[in-house]
């Protein structure tokens, strides 16, 4: 088996919380990412699902080293980024690109499409200066933008087209791994379909790996090979997309899955309505962070943090009662 493109080992990103102006003291820690271990293989699409505040975006930013990791290792093609120098990280970023959620905020409004796409190529010296124009024309075609729009500014494009520009910018460096943080949630349904199709075509054609972050399970199921479900900084379930979504093991995943619309007028499966809000990461519950909202919680759940354990060959779950809950079905 070939070397995985990305490996995360017990990755933690903690943010200190300070109070006071003159005598700043640390009053707590937000454990945004708290012990995540993951592997992304070549040519694979890994879906990362969770609600707001669960740490999925912080995880993405940590992988790119936009936020320093507190502990653990990020191994990109055998090189540990947490122990690398700034120059090495810059070199690694060539292979590691990101597409952000809001194409209105992530493109520089004062740069034309041409300048936006040329900048990364020049910074990373991908190709000689005189070939840049040719490469940009190719990129525009790859992502389905009209070639004549190179001299336009972002505000002249619609949301879907802007997301195409953002994807083209990520592709400009011929990366091996793209992290897409909610790339379609700001878009309308029909445009969302266009961008999803484009991403899965690119993955197939260019043999890319993709980490696809979203809160919408039906979108994630559609595009991903494997899915990881996050809750409060930890991965609670990980497995093949089909397994996780059709046969979820963790009670949290079950609730998320039950919220996917079935489009059957009789309602289809019953919707599981969880009580309460996701807890604050500043003051997480003891033991399993999900226990205050979990319909299956017992006293044992409050005692210890459940580890992510293998239930089948390729399906892992962090719930001490997973086997019991799955049993009677």
């Amino acid at each position, binding site marked *: 088996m070939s070397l995985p493109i990305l490996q995360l080992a017990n990755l933690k990103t903690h943010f200190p919380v300070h109070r006071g102006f003159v005598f700043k003291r640390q009053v707590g820690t937000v454990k945004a990412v708290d012990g995540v271990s993951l592997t992304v293989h070549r040519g694979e699409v890994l879906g990362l699902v969770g609600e707001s505040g669960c740490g999925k975006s912080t995880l993405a930013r940590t992988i790119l080293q936009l936020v320093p990791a507190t502990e653990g290792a990020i191994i990109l093609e055998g090189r540990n980024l947490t122990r690398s120098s700034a120059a090495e990280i810059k070199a690694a970023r060539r292979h590691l690109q990101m597409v952000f959620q809001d194409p209105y905020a992530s493109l520089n409004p004062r740069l034309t499409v041409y300048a936006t796409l040329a900048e990364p190529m020049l910074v990373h010296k991908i190709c000689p200066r005189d070939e840049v124009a040719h490469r940009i024309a190719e990129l525009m075609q790859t992502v389905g933008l009209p070639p004549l729009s190179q001299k336009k500014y972002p505000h002249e494009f*619609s949301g879907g087209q802007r997301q195409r520009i953002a994807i083209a910018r990520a592709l400009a460096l011929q990366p091996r791994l793209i992290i897409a943080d909610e790339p379609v949630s700001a878009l309308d*349904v*029909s445009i969302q*379909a266009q961008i999803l*199709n484009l991403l899965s075509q690119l993955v197939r054609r260019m043999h890319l790996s993709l980490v696809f972050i979203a809160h919408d399970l039906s979108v994630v199921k*559609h595009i991903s090979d494997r899915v990881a479900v996050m809750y409060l900084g930890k991965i609670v379930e990980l497995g093949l997309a089909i397994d996780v979504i059709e046969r979820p093991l963790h009670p949290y995943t079950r609730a998320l899955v039950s919220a996917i619309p079935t489009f059957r007028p009789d309602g289809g499966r019953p919707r599981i309505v*969880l009580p309460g809000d996701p807890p604050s990461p500043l003051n997480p519950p003891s033991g399993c962070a999900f226990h205050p909202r979990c319909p299956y919680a017992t006293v044992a759940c409050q005692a210890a943090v459940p580890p992510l354990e293998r239930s089948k060959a390729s399906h892992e779950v962090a719930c001490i009662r997973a086997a019991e809950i799955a049993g009677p079905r």
Partner: protein
Amino acid sequence: MPLLEVNDLRTYFHTRSGVCRAVDGVSFSVEKGETLGIVGESGSGKSVTCYSLMGLLPQPPGHIESGRALFAGTDLLRCTSREARAIRGKRIAMVFQDPLTSLNPYLRISDQLIEPLIIHGKIPRQHALARALAMLEAVGINDAAARLHHYPHEFSGGMRQRVMIAMSLITQPELLIADEPTTALDVTVQAQILELIQRLQREFNMAVIYITHDLGVVSGLCDRVQVMYAGRIVETASTRSLFARPRHPYTQALQRSIPSLQPKGGELYNIPGLPPDPAKKPPGCAFAPRCEHATGLCPSRDPELVPFQDDHATACLRVQAGEL
């Protein structure tokens, strides 16, 4: 007699780049206790329709060119502002998408909750506060007595939306207009809020209009759905009929582009092109340039919304000719 009957509503915006026909001849009705879903992509005119009814349209640039909206005998579009005030906020209430921008950050929620009661009910403050407390409990806010005097920023997103719902339902309206009530919320919180609205709807026997871009929300909640495109209703049907046998090419295309309705990994259907610029709408059927079934006739005639079954109508010439 229906609770609300809208007839040929046209709302145009007069802008520097031309007349923008945001709502262009919309007719529909809502019965007592009924749940209606209005579905469409951004710019389809679904929100402007409801803002016109509620008198929330900025005028100018907006202008209601024609139409009637009868609510219990009063034409909402022509009545005096005194008449409108007696209905708006009392008999018709509205919940907005983003609870953070629609609550006043400077006022305690107690003051915001009782405001409609004091204005419309003319009841003493103490009684109003008691009603507010009962309402907060009804929408599922724990420890309501203590939370009553908090400020909006002290609540989470889901809780704020509950406060919004409590505020709009405190006068026990007959019609609630919910404009994307769960778009800004997390999946699990979305399920809570939708269930809450459904429960209160049954309790108060109120009619609800959901405005949403999410066909999923509509499929589980609404009795009837109407699909809007470029300022017009292109298809209206009972929810069952719409999802089982969508007839208008736009509705079909929408359903084919939703991942949860498609087999995994397959190509999603792409609707080519973009929705038309509302200031430069194509002649005839506005969907024709993007429609895979369009013929030479489509751009030449405005399709009317014609029923072909009791509970199902479409505005497509080819469906009406029996060709699709």
